[in-house]
């Protein structure tokens, strides 16, 4: 039987339209052999959580460059939890100041990637930490 692929949702929460990074990552994940769902811009945390459950993904990667990650990232984790999908891993990236890392980790974001993170490092982290659910 073929090995089950990792299913990842790349999501853009909030009103930010800076999607260059998110779209490049979506392509890289596809090339790395993941199954990729890209939400497009302007999704609310509620929409992202609902779509993640609907699509039965293993992991959600959030991208935000507007500074609104402090509210939006934790809110995605919170809604997933409310809907009984706390097992979906949430990671994030974008323009995230160092001083915001602790509060994001505390809120349940499992990894944060900022400018300079290589595509390879991001893919490695996912391969190491995510086991596709059967």
């Amino acid at each position, binding site marked *: 039987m073929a090995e089950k692929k990792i299913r990842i949702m790349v999501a853009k929460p*909030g*009103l*930010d*339209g*800076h*999607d*260059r990074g*998110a*779209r*490049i990552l*979506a*392509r*890289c994940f596809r090339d790395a052999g993941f199954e990729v769902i*890209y*939400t*497009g*811009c*302007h999704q*609310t945390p509620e929409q992202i959580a609902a779509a993640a459950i609907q699509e039965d993904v293993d992991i959600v990667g959030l991208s935000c460059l*507007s*500074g*609104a*990650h*402090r*509210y*939006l990232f934790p*809110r995605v984790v919170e809604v997933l939890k409310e809907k009984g999908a706390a097992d979906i891993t949430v990671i994030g990236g974008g*323009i995230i*100041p160092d*001083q915001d890392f602790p509060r994001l980790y505390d809120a349940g974001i499992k990894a944060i990637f*900022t*400018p*300079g993170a*290589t*595509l*390879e490092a991001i893919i490695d982290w996912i391969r190491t930490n995510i086991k596709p659910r059967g």
Partner: protein
Amino acid sequence: MSRRAFFNSLLEGGDWVTVYFTKNTLNQSKELSDKWEEEVRQTVARTPDQKARCSTVSDLEIKRLYTPEDIEKTDFARDIGVPGEFPFLRGNQATGYRGRYWTFRMFSGMGSAKDTNARWHMLLKEGNAGLSTAFDFPTLMGYDSDSPKARGECGRCGVAIDTLDDFRTLMEGIPMDKVTTSMTINPPATALWAMYCAAAESKGVSLAQIGGTIQNDMLKEFIAQKTFMCPPEPSVRLISDTVEFGTKYVPNWNTISISGYHIREAGSTAIQELAFTLRDGIEYVEDVIRRKGLDVDEFAPRLSFFFNAHIDFFEEICKMRAARRIWARVMRDRFHAKNPRSWWMRFHTQTAGCSLTAQQPYNNVVRTAVEALAAVLGGTQSLHTNSLDEVLCLPSDHAVEIALRTQQILAEETGVANTIDPLAGSYFVESLTNKMEEEAWAYIEKIDAMGGMVAAIEKGFPQLEIADAAYRFQQQIDAGEKTMVGVNKYANSAKQEIPVQDINPQVEEEQIARLAAVKRRRDSRAVKRDLDELKSACKTGKNVMPFCIQAVKDLATVQEICDVYREAFGEYRDPGLY
């Protein structure tokens, strides 16, 4: 003959094409080049080049040497000429920067209207000549600060504006009859421009006296920046409304800033930026003529453009020179404009945010200086220089000051403003300018064949061309084929700490409270009547601007006006192409 075929026929040379160099010079050049090539072959055999292939940041291959033969088909009067004359390759102004420098126009906006007003006063005091407004995301997307969609965003990426009350605070103490203001605003452009008009009137400044720019370029939003609200067709219609209103009542206003900046930031090549931007411009001109019945010369002189100054020095200079020449040809030959002012391409430039690095952020000062120099040599009319910390946060006062001083040093110390278009006639610069023009025409004709830019956007054509280019660049960075200092080369682990400008979360609370107070205070029946009238203008095709101005005077909010558009025209959703 198509424009491109015509251009190619010029390059191939017809009987009537004059030759730029004498036969003797070309013979000498050929002879010496042959000798030089042999020398190069021998040298490379001993010491190979550092790279097998040299290319621009856009991956356009560059030759080792350019010679007279590369531009031998040039017709001086037709292709180069003098500043202030068709084809404006060498600039719009006959006097260049001697008459006046480019406008130092620093883009700024953060927190509340009061915070931004304070930054503006600081900038004007330090020699900034024109204002340029950054709005926060809720304002940019047509939501009020109290909308659930705005949570966490208020005042973060720019200034939060909900009503005319905020706008008046923003303009406090700013002489609106003297200072020109640019506003980076797109889907809600009609509402924010209406506020500007109303704020001016309340200071006793007439519409004929105010000057400035609204970005108001929706096509590039669908292509690249993704700040959209309604579908492309009605979005273009609202833009044509502003062009018509400006032409009739606000003669010194630039009602569109046709923008390549965001196309480039999304990862396009320089040629894609050039081609898509100019094709967007063509689309707007066609729509205004068709929908409003205006003569091209009535409104074309107020069209303005906005380009990126990326890190590849010569490519940027050539892009800007080519842009002016293509636009002049488009306006004269495609739209048969008669007024030389219609042939002008006036543009603002901003240095490339995407070229800056979060690593070793002080290096960004150097990048910005080089990019700004390219913009000046490319003949920009106004310039924003990015601050070194803009990859990390909104710029701090100190970082903004360095960025502004960069422009002042270029203008007043380096001597580059002494003479106009100093790179003209360079074999390389003219050849690359020609190449960029030729490739831009190929794209323009391809989009023409698709039925125009709206049709091309609906097919996802420009979006995917840019996505391909962005992906290719990222792969080149990851493979080390292209260098970003401090990122994939000369990286070090020692972190350079820089002060990070933060926005107090209280801004959001206070803004929501202010909005609530306005909503209680205003005459809500008047607001409802205004919005109903706006809705009916949307349906009947009447120009929306007078209705917007009335609505903002009665303190209708940005979102209330935009909700009318959403209801009348529908909402556009990101197709999520990647």
